[in-house]
């Protein structure tokens, strides 16, 4: 019996245009059988939260390389909470100093993927998270 596909929103918040990582992840998750929606560049946290509601996704994957994660992630998590989307799993990839990780986990970012993470690892972790 076909299982329901995991729905993922890949989003690039902030002003940065470096989308190599976001595009690779979008394609790798799609190749792994997930349904992937890519928002395109320069999405505000409001736009991302609305897209997550509209598309009824299980996972939001954020790509941030600009150093703005400490501002953008808490904003998004608050908006998701306000929209009753607390059950969506939010993961983050990009240039993230280790010292910032505890605070990001505290606001509810489920996983933080640093440069060098393989796409298989990301696929596996998402599968594990969503199976729960």
């Amino acid at each position, binding site marked *: 019996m076909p299982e329901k596909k995991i729905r993922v929103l890949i989003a690039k918040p902030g002003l940065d245009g470096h*989308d190599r990582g976001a595009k690779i992840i979008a394609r790798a998750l799609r190749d792994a059988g997930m349904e992937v929606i890519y928002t395109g560049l320069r999405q*505000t946290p409001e736009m991302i939260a609305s897209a997550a509601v509209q598309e009824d996704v299980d996972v939001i994957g954020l790509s941030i390389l600009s150093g703005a994660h400490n*501002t953008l992630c808490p904003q998004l998590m608050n908006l998701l909470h306000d929209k009753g989307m607390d059950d969506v799993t939010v993961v983050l990839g990009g240039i993230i100093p280790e010292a910032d990780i505890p605070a990001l986990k505290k606001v509810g970012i489920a996983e933080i993927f640093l440069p060098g993470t393989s796409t298989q690892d990301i696929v596996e972790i998402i599968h594990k998270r969503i199976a729960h």
Partner: protein
Amino acid sequence: MSDESKVSTQTVAPAEPPSQKRKPSGKEKAWQENTLRPTLAKNPERQAEFTTVSGYPIQRLYTPADLSGWDADRDLGYPGEPPYTRGIHSTMHRGRLWTMRQFAGFGAAEDTNQRFRYLLAQGQTGLSTAFDLPTLMGYDSDHPLSEGEVGKCGVAISSLADMEVLFDKIPLANVTTSMTINSPAAVIWAMYLAVAEKQGADWKKISGTLQNDILKEYIAQKEYIYPPEPSMRLVIDTFEFGVKNTPKFNTISISGYHIREAGSTAIQELAFTLRDGLEYVEWGMRRGLDVDEFVPQLSFFFNAHNDFFEEIAKYRAARRIWHKAMVERYKSRSPRSWALRFHTQTAGCSLTAQQPYNNVVRTAIQALAAVLGGTQSLHTNSLDEAWALPTEFAATIALRTQQIIAHETGVANTVDALGGSYFVETLTNEVERGAWDYIEKIDALGGMVAAIERGYPQREISEASYRYQVEVDKKEKIIVGVNDFVTKEKPLDILQIDETVAARQGDRLRKLRAERSGDEVARRLSALRKAAQGTENLMPYIFDAVKSYATLGEICDAMREVFGTYEEIAIT
């Protein structure tokens, strides 16, 4: 190449005759029979196929048989002479070392001013400015979209007042400055010229480089504001202004760096960058500029990635292609237009967050390729760049890496040390041929702007980048410390950006808006708006607005009102 790439049905004849089938000499045949074959029978090679980091196949051995038809005087030539394979100056780094130009910028103007002065005191020979994302996107520091981004990826510059602080006590008459700014390049350049004027520096003598390469923004880095047509108009406005007012300033740095960072192959980097260059030349000529009047002010910027010989071949091929295109396509008569001058930066995307001290070694090898490839200036990345902007400690090692190459290794003692190598010459020929194939494909699409609008270069890069990731994930390509030779290590001490920058910038902007003449600003912005609706050169209007302390955001908004903004169709 992907299937999607076959957008053109028109076949184009290769620019160079395809290399004749190899005809090994009797001695080579004997070697294959008597020496090679028994070895392979006993010990097969490590891999079935050897490829560059770009996936380009590399043979076991290169011999004179690979260069049949190749003529040293014609194809290699002599340094400082066409086709410039060996470099653009007759004495190259014996005459003058490359400019050691470290890209720096963070926080507010005063923070970066301090780093600039530190780097100059350490023996750096040119400045290079990194701007933060709000500045790159034409927003002031207090714009709502700037929240969280002010001073993070570079220095925050919202007005001439910030620019005055950035270059405080740095005499612009004596230092060359590169500015990595694209969509708002005309505005930032006007600010720089206003500071130079205030310092009493002669515009005819000041020198530096404006990145100003909007095409690669649509292709790779994606920091665009306006649609392609008005963006190209602004670029040509700066060319025209530069020809008249600042003859020593490079009004553009046509950049492959970002194309490569986005995941392209070396051949794609070379081809798309040079085709961008040709596009600028064509738009300049369409404006009515004489080719030899403005092309000497065009400069280039390439990546230095891990694959040592592929990179060296890329730089050598770049010079040969540019010379050929200038002479054959545009009938240029000035050697100053023929010689491709370039800056190099080592590959940020090759650096690893894991075992970051290994990045010093990667950077050194990449820098060596750039030097052997005949670069005019060089930025070496710092070891901590997969984590954050560099600390002073890391930035100093990066600069020292260049000084060690320049003064200790001996590679600067001779010109084009690898010239005549069977391998390097063959690879140079092949990389050149591969680039011409792409260039002609883009010609057939109607030029680079048309190709971008069809998503062609974007799709080619995206395919290459995914292909590479798959190879890394399958361990077909090894990255030390990432997918092999993995160990656990202690976290690095990294640069913390002062969180008060945004507040400081906000205060400064409030003060500026209160103190300047609002009427004057409004008048000059309205003049700019009106000029933008017509066809006049916008530089004088932008310069006027800048001098009234109109902010970057206000000036870019005035043009947004006329030009509109650009949204790309995302390709995944």
